[in-house]
């Protein structure tokens, strides 16, 4: 059962957690920060072997070990073109989070950084797990540090926000657990690659899809399950918001790509109109509400609802451009919104307010800050040359390819995005300054943590080919399998007479 080379994924997952335990032996807050910074940089170095990723659709860096033999649980890790970008994003975000909370976090630093590292471990686990239960373990483990990040270091209303976040997401994922168990009972295994080869009855797919989709939709979050998000974002400290936006929300859309499309293709097809409709509502609703906000953080939080709507829309178009666009948007949203939240944190440290009216006139007094803000704002609404454009245009093409009717609905969505971003940026740049005169522009630390995302914004925006090469084989395979298996399930005269029965008889024969 052993298939073990250099266990790069295990090391990536385990290192932050083990290193986090070292925090308990440290005292001075400053030492804690340097230590965590070092850990996050070492984590980046440990990810270097991932550069050996081959440009094909297979799961790579696979590690497999028996976990609970009697129940068929395995410690099974691996990445493909879809997950590797998310893994790299997660690792890259960690040092930025440490940097942006350098002066922001003024109490219980040890626990704060412990939570950051714990969170990184569990999120990486989510993106690497190829066993359903292992996936679930990581999926749930991440709740505790996130809850603490909001509940301890958050704003005034942190208790309410953290509780809402916890209850919403956990309530959703308990049904995911039921779906996982149902997969095991019907398919006979927890291994995701094995389950991807099986055809389940439509009836089974129907329920499994609903149970999984609820969990993922809450995490994304899609309208109307989004209400925890603005509360959580607004109350969370900068690093919390960054992680939330950059990686946690991606877990939901990743779930759709990894589970719903390959495991329940017929049901995904069946529910696609509903998912598309909800995505469009999310886009329009998120944009419209964002337009009316006076709190910058809330504005960006609601814009997330809209952006993630683009992602889910792209996924449920089931065409090459749509899914590629969705993947790009997942990456882009992580970079851009993460950077925006870091900047909101930076400006909050100066003004102690997140109101637009208290943060105006920055163009004159904080030109460097405003430069980065402008760049991120442009990327956020998909200005050509930035990464946002690449993702959004792909989703657009996919949508028009699917039906001009769907495409038509996206146009106001994109316009809304431009409108709210311009509105806030104009005010921040040229509005009448209140106290901005006394503020200092970006310091070296802020320069560093804003330059890195800015590089990626332009890199993906101007030269996306490299990224296409990584994701294309996996997306192709995903869609090919999807088309075949969907047809297989639909063509079957009696979808109720299950493939599961066949599998059971097969298993019986084997025994």
């Amino acid at each position, binding site marked *: 059962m052993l298939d073990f080379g250099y266990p790069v994924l295990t090391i990536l997952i385990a290192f932050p957690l083990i290193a986090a335990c070292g925090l308990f032996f440290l005292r001075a807050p400053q030492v804690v920060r340097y230590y965590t910074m070092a850990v996050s940089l070492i984590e980046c170095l440990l990810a270097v072997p991932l550069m050996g990723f081959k440009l094909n659709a297979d799961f790579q860096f696979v590690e497999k070990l028996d976990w609970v033999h009697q*129940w068929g649980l395995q410690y099974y890790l691996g990445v493909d073109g879809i997950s590797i970008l998310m893994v790299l994003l997660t690792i890259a975000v960690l040092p930025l989070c440490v940097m942006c909370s350098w002066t922001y976090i003024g109490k219980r630093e040890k626990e704060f950084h412990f939570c950051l590292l714990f969170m990184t471990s569990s999120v990486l686990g989510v993106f690497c797990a190829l066993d359903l239960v292992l996936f679930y373990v990581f999926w749930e483990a991440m709740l505790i540090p996130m809850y603490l990040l909001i509940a301890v270091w958050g704003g005034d209303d942190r208790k309410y926000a953290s509780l809402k976040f916890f209850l919403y997401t956990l309530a959703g994922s308990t049904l995911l657990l039921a779906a996982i168990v149902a997969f095991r009972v*019907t398919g006979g295994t927890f291994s995701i690659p094995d389950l991807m080869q099986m055809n389940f009855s439509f009836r089974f797919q129907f329920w499994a899809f609903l149970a999984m989709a609820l969990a993922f939709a809450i995490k994304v979050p899609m309208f109307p399950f989004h209400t925890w998000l603005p509360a959580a974002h607004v109350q969370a400290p900068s690093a919390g918001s960054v992680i939330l936006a950059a990686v946690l929300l991606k877990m939901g859309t990743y779930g759709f790509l990894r589970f719903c499309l390959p495991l329940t293709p017929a049901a995904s097809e069946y529910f696609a109109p509903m998912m598309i409709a909800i995505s469009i509502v999310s886009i329009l609703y998120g944009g419209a509400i964002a337009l009316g906000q006076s709190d910058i953080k809330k504005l960006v939080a609601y814009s997330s609802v809209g952006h993630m709507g683009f992602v889910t829309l792209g996924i449920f178009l089931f065409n090459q451009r749509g899914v590629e666009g969705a993947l790009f948007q997942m990456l882009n949203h992580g970079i851009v919104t993460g950077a925006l939240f870091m900047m909101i944190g930076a400006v909050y440290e100066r003004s102690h307010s997140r109101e637009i009216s208290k943060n105006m006139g920055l163009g004159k007094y904080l030109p460097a800050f405003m430069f980065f803000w402008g760049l991120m704002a442009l990327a956020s609404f998909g200005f050509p040359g930035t990464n946002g454009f690449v993702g959004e245009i792909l989703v657009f093409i996919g949508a028009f390819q699917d039906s001009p009717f769907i495409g038509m609905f996206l146009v106001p969505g994109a316009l809304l995005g431009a409108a709210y971003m311009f509105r806030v940026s104009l005010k921040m740049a040229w509005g009448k300054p209140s106290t901005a005169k006394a503020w200092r522009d970006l310091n070296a630390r802020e320069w560093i943590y804003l330059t890195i995302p800015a590089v990626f914004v332009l890199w993906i925006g101007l030269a996306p080919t490299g990224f296409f090469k990584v994701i294309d084989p996996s997306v192709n395979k995903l869609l090919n399998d999807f088309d075949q298996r969907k047809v297989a399930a639909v063509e079957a005269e009696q979808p109720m007479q299950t493939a599961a029965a066949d599998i059971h008889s097969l298993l019986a024969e084997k025994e």
Partner: protein
Amino acid sequence: MNFNITALVPELFFLCMVLALLVQSLGSREWKPPVEKWLPFGACAAFFVTITGFHLHGAMFWDVYKVDLMSQFFKIVITFGFYVVVLNASRQPTLAEGKRADYYMLLGFSTLGLMMLASSVELITIYLALELASYSMYAVIPLRAKDKGAAEAGIKYIMFGAVATALALYGLSYIMATQHTTYIAELMNKPWSFADQPMAVVGLSLFLGGMFFKLALFPFHFWCPDVYQGASNETAAFVATMPKMGAIVVLCRLAVLLKPGLEITTILAVLGALSMTFGNLSALAQTDIKRLLGFSSVAHAGYIMVGLVSGTPEGIGAAAFYGMAYLVMNLLVFWIVSRVASDGRNLKLSDLNGLYKKAPVLAFSLAAGAFALVGLPPTMGFMGKFFLITSAWDHGYNWLVITLVVNSAIAIYYYLSLFRHAFTEESAPSHAAPPDNGWFASAGAGMLAAAVLVIGMVPAPLFNFAINAGKTLYGITVTFAGGGH
């Protein structure tokens, strides 16, 4: 009469220990050898003796007493529980000095009864062992000095217990009258549908009622929150965990009679569902931690039913595993409750405020315990629940699995509030005694928390043991090489 003394070594060792306690409690008031100096070592030794006897097997006393994997699994769990309870109780502040030896003796007799219960495979023997386990409890609960609540709790426990016992005995008579045997092995081959044997079904239901009382399953749970609240923290730790192990092992043995679809199985499933829902909803409203844990245990009793109704060795293994997980998680939480209430008072949720600052190890351990009770990974509570629902899915009780899942979501709120108060609230200055933050308190909490986490991440050895125990009940031969060791 077949008799094999080596198979009884764990029980005999334990019996000797309890007799020593008896001798000590009979001594004069002036004679005070320090029971707390030697008993923890004795209890620890008993635990290890039981572990070394995991592979023992044999049937004796006209086959009413069977030593098999299932009994040994539970004996290990029970002696472990006793060890932790003894350590915990060694600091009980509300217990008068002169009563200490008596207190441990009563706990010891009760534990011995539970160990015998684990091996009983005949209904009358089960009944006798159950009574041995219960009588000491009736005496122990009101031992909290100078507290009217304790007396009330004791009376409630006795009254409910007497009624439940009477019901069980009455049910036993029905089973004997209709099935003409009291051996579980023979009962296995008898019909248990209402159409074939209505009286036997009624009888078994009533007999099970006696077990449900011990397990605090709805609607036999009314004593539970009041007794937890009235008894001292350390005694409550015992009442909350140990008798349940006895009930679970008997239910596991009786579960082989049940098949999915039988009326009685459906009754179990319905009671399980009601128990989860009722327990969790009631716990939502509690502010007294012991009451909260009382109602939560009603919910946990319901969870265990999920494993029992599936009618498979896996289901019984899962129920046994969950029983063990339940014991460890609860002992952990009660350990912390006892240490935080270092003066023996009843804790409110707000008393936990700021615990992370006052006693970080206790706070961290409390988090592990609370999240294990919720069933969050990577704790043994998650693995236990996971095994339960996997075993029950597709055996006709999918609705029960969904009920469990929904209930877990409800339960989050109140378990999270334990965590919330300990970690995110700041404490107000108060005159209450500070938490016991010594090395003993921290080490105990840390060890139990580590057990909760480690078994959650590496459940395979213990789970294999439990599942093999389940298989032996169905007469499936298990080789010890595969016994998880």
